[in-house]
Each structure stands twice: as structure tokens, then as C-alpha cells.
């Protein structure tokens, strides 16, 4: 089965980000294809490499990165949502005159069309949000 996952909330603040991760991991372990994980609204905050969570807690960003490395997952941050919330890759930094980037490895910034495309291509869209 071909799945698309949408994540609408940022890490730590809301459990939606955890649920999306655990669900995605379980789907991959069962052999399903996860076509894309699309991060929207505050969900784009899952894709910053600048977090330093407490030692005794999970590292949500790194978890996504490791999952993407293992399964070659496509992790897409919505560009409009990322601009509002200050998530920047090199292209965005150049276009918007920013002096730093903060995107984590394995994440990429792209348009909302990627969500629509995923919904069209996949057998199921599973939304995690507030």
C-alpha cells in the first residue's frame, strides 16, 4: 500500500508529530511504501537541525532524519509555511536574503503541490494535527 502522511504540528509542543513518526515507522516496517511525509503549518518546525532537546527526552528531528536515511523517505516542508516560521535552506536563504540556514538533513522545502500530488498518487492520506 502506498501512503502519504501529513504532519501539521511542531515537535514537542503537540503529540501529533510523535504520532506521525510512530505511524510512519510502523508502516515502513510492515513493508508499506510511504510516498511522502508532508509537513504543513507548524509541522515545518520538525525540520530544523538547531534543536537541542533535553538529554532524557527523545530527539524528534533526529528520529525523522534517521528514518529518512534508512528508508529513503521523502520529507517535504511546505515553502509558504516554512517562510512564515523561519525554516530556511540554502536556496531560500539566497532568495530571501537570510544569513543562515537551519534546515535539517534529509528534509527539503517545496510547494503545496507536493501535498496535492501525494494525495493523488497514494492509496491513503493520513493526517496528524492539532
Amino acid at each position, binding site marked *: 500500500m502506498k501512503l502519504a502522511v*501529513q504532519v*501539521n504540528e511542531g515537535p514537542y509542543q503537540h503529540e501529533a508529530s510523535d504520532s506521525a513518526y510512530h505511524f510512519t515507522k510502523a508502516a515502513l516496517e510492515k513493508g508499506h511504501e510511504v510516498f511522502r511525509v508532508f509537513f*504543513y*503549518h507548524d509541522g515545518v518546525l520538525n525540520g530544523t537541525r538547531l534543536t537541542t532537546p533535553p538529554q532524557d527526552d527523545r530527539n524528534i528531528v533526529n528520529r525523522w532524519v534517521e528514518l529518512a536515511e534508512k528508508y529513503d523517505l521523502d520529507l517535504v516542508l511546505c515553502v*509558504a*509555511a516554512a517562510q*512564515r516560521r523561519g525554516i530556511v535552506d540554502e536556496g531560500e536563504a539566497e532568495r530571501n536574503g537570510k544569513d543562515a540556514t537551519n534546515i535539517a538533513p534529509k528534509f527539503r522545502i517545496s*510547494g*503545496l*503541490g507536493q*501535498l*496535492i*500530488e501525494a*494525495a*493523488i498518487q497514494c492509496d491513503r*492520506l493520513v*493526517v496528524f*494535527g492539532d
Partner: protein
Amino acid sequence: MSDVKKFMYLNRRAPYGTIYAWESLEVVLIGAAFDQEVSLMFVDDGVFQLVKGSDTSELDMKNFTPTYRTLGDYGVRHMYVDKASLEARGLTQDDLVEVAWEDWETEEEVDNIVEIVDSEQIAKLLAESDVVFSF
């Protein structure tokens, strides 16, 4: 499965207090390029999104209420409003924006695609959709 999917956007939140209403509208606008069969559903405080007369000048926020009126041009064919939610909020169709629709090929026109529906119809419409986007 056919090439065209039935997309349903499910809106249950008030506008302006949070960004969900506006950012979900952005998905609808972008989605127009993909030629799917698009409907919007407004339930609970989501019905407040369609209330006309919004003036955000004192909040210095972008006013996106007028954008709903243009959705017919973005390929949205149906906008459904939950009757029970509307009534609980003391609202009637007169309080809501009107959204016209025209098929450029067949010249078919509809004055207002905003339609009030009951629970049973909503359950059926949701069930018949291929994809439900929740915000």
C-alpha cells in the same frame, strides 16, 4: 480508480484565531492546478470562516475572507455548510459569503455554490470522497 479524485477539505475552525483556515485555503488555491473534483465542507466553528463583513485592519492581519468568494474560479464545485453548526451559532445563509461558479466550456453557471446540508448528507458526502483533508 479513475484519474480524477474527489477531494474534500474539512474545515472545523474559526478564522483568524489560528492560521488553519487561511493555510487550508492556500491548499485549495494551489490544488486548482491539478484538475481534481474539489469540495469544501464547513462544520463546527468552521462555518465562521464564511461569515461576510470581515475587517481585519485594526488587527493588521491579512483579510482572507474575500478569497472564499473567488473559489469558483479555482475549480471548487461545492461548498457545504453544516446546518446544525450554522443554527447553533445563530447564523443563516444571509450571513455567509456567496460564491459563484461557471464552467467555461459548457457555459453552465451557478449563482452560489454555498449549500446548507444536514448531518446525513455530510456523512454521505464525506464517505463518497476519495481523499479528506483535515485542518
